[in-house]
């Protein structure tokens, strides 16, 4: 009776054990988690469009003016950070961990710039009287962009952890799943922002 010895499967920790040719276990987990996040934002976008479709005027009268060019600058910053993130991934695929650290640091910096810019926009809007409780536009605007901002902050923490791990030389061309995971997440956060930018600022 031929049997497969499980000892050979046990040499690697469970989270790294995957079939040759398939997607690695940790990356698959990340992709699935991102799918759930997409549905979370899907619920918020669904609420936004439902409320908007029922409103007589959109944005409702008395809403402060949103500065599209300002948001466009923020968009550019976040999209560039996605590009720099990908440059970092390509660097480690060539086993260049010095470049990886450089690009991670740049991406982190751009992410923080975006957050600072968003905080400044919030400050301006709140000074003009728009808050979560000022009406349905304020509720949807701050909820959607706020949850996105929280995800950017989470992604920035993720990048910081990856950066610290890269500094201690944990990644190689062969082993860098965590870098790929961070990049998937960062791109996802970027794409959500593109959705938000077009929905809230462009689609008037």
């Amino acid at each position, binding site marked *: *009776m*031929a*049997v*497969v*010895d*499980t000892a050979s*499967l*046990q040499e690697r920790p*469970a*989270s790294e*054990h*995957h*079939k040759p040719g*398939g*997607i*690695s*276990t940790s990356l*698959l*987990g990340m992709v*699935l*988690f991102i*799918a*759930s*996040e*997409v*549905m*979370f*934002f*899907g*619920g*918020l976008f*669904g*609420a936004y469009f*439902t*409320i908007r479709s*029922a*409103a007589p005027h959109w944005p*409702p009268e008395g809403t402060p003016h949103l500065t599209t060019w300002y948001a466009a600058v923020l968009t550019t910053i976040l999209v560039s950070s996605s590009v720099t993130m990908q440059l970092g991934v390509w660097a480690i695929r060539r086993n260049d961990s010095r470049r990886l650290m450089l690009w991670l640091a740049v991406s982190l910096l751009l992410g923080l710039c975006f957050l600072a810019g968003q905080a400044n926009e919030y400050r301006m809007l709140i000074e003009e009287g728009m*808050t*979560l*409780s000022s*009406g*349905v*536009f304020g*509720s*949807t605007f701050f*909820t959607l962009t706020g*949850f996105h901002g929280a995800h950017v902050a989470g992604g920035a923490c993720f990048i910081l952890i990856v950066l610290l791990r890269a500094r201690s030389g944990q990644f190689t061309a062969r082993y860098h799943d965590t870098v790929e995971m961070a990049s998937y997440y960062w791109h996802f956060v970027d794409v959500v922002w593109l959705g938000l930018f077009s929905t809230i600022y462009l689609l008037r």
Partner: protein
Amino acid sequence: MAITEARPEAAADQAHGVSPRRHPIVEWLTTTDHKKIGIMYLVNSYFWFGVAGLLAVFIRAELAEPGTQFFGEERYNQLFTMHGTTMIFLFIIPILAGFGNYIVPLQIGALDMAFPRVNALSFWMLPLAGITLYSSYLLGGPADAGWTEYAPLSEGVGAQGNSIGIDLWIVALLLVGTASILGAVNFITTIFNMRAPGMTMFRMPLFTWTILVTSLLVLLATPVFTSALVMLLIDRNLGGSFFNPANGGIAVLWQNVFWFYSHPAVYVMVLPGMGIISDVLPVFSRKPLFGYKAFVFATAGIGALGFSVWAHHMFVTGQVLLPFFSIMTFLIAVPTGVKFFNWIATLVKGQITFSTAMLFAIGFLTMFLIGGIDGVFLASPPVDFALTETYWVVAHIHYVLFGGSVFAVYAGFYYWFPKFSGKRLKEGLGKLHFWLQFIGFNLTFFSMHILGLLGMPRRIQDYAPLKDWVGLNQLQTAGALLIALSTAPFLANVVMTIRRKDRDPEDPWEGNTLEWYTTSPPPAHNFDSLPEIHSERPLFDLRHADELTVHSDATTTGAR
């Protein structure tokens, strides 16, 4: 013939990192072993089943006669809200995930789940959620707007909805939701990436298949519920106006986002049950499941259609496209019908053994059939207009979730208990449990169909002293007591069996699927070796290797 592998030496477990020095309590509290986590899921969920069952007995006590007996209106609202919430979110969904945790890695020949630490995190959020939900009894009263918490009732308007109970309800459900999503990520990754060599997708046991489809539903539907909860939390606490029409929000939006999750959640609560049944029926009929692939496609079909029927809960709002959602709802009965043919054809000409697990499986078949049919009535908008918010709906949900899911949970428990402990539960007490529960269940819930047709509305604490209403309500109260009583032989059975010294065979039922290849209970690392897997019944193939040799040799030589 003994085909299960020999019991491994204790030394083998120590070599795999199980420290003998650690105190058992510390070991359980810090474990990342999917089997221990699975057991904790089962115990925790069953505890909340008991709590919610007690609330149900209180509800029935209040309804035993017209007028106010024990609970006033507000208390009564809290009772049915907490009963529904606890049963659905703290019992049925987690207990099925518990079976999945214990059984799925064993069925596909994996050593553990893909992310063991995330698995432990998922579990520990559940008792935390339970405590959060029930702490509301100490902090000014629990949620009271029904387990659906419809806005604007839940928005903090009027007497209902002002309590901190709804905020705690939201937080508890956010925790349960996060636990479910992480669990789903874990299950899908495990099933896609950790299968043993030879275990192709179409050789997976059907329980594993249903857990896969269930996890996809959880992954895509639960986050939408999370977004709904977050919006409600913002409305209630930060002055948001998503569901507040006075400020430009839309109250019925809550129902849309809520049911976009909660209808697929119905399949989350029943698909794994169907999977349990599909593993139990073949074993006790000594036949393979009839139409394996048809069953898999029907499961996937239910999963896909499950996303397009949510608005049938909202026919009476006048805000939904009736023909579309009605047709889709009729349509989703078709794959379920396919499964009934799978199950019945499996039984036909089988050598049936009426073990307790089999009795519960057949109980599932009959009770879930009734639940399915009385649900199809509601798919028709004119009938729904008449029956919505009556006891017909209460009868339907209980035939599906109690007659369906709970009977399947017990079938799975009696079937897999020897795997958990190495010992079979006593058949005599098991059968007593089954019959008490079966009779009590039908007394309670079948009569609710009639009560619904007679027009009695649900969710009321007092009712008109009409002769028919009073008689049926008393029958239901008696039935509910019988259901409560039926858990006594079950619990006695579990305690007596655990304390018993002698062991049963490693594979007492002559199972077909891979979990029966290892010892009962399995070692920490699950398998010392794995058999070659050529079909969806690897153990059947092993048991009958002699008869199969000639045939398989011929095919392999032919292939070469």
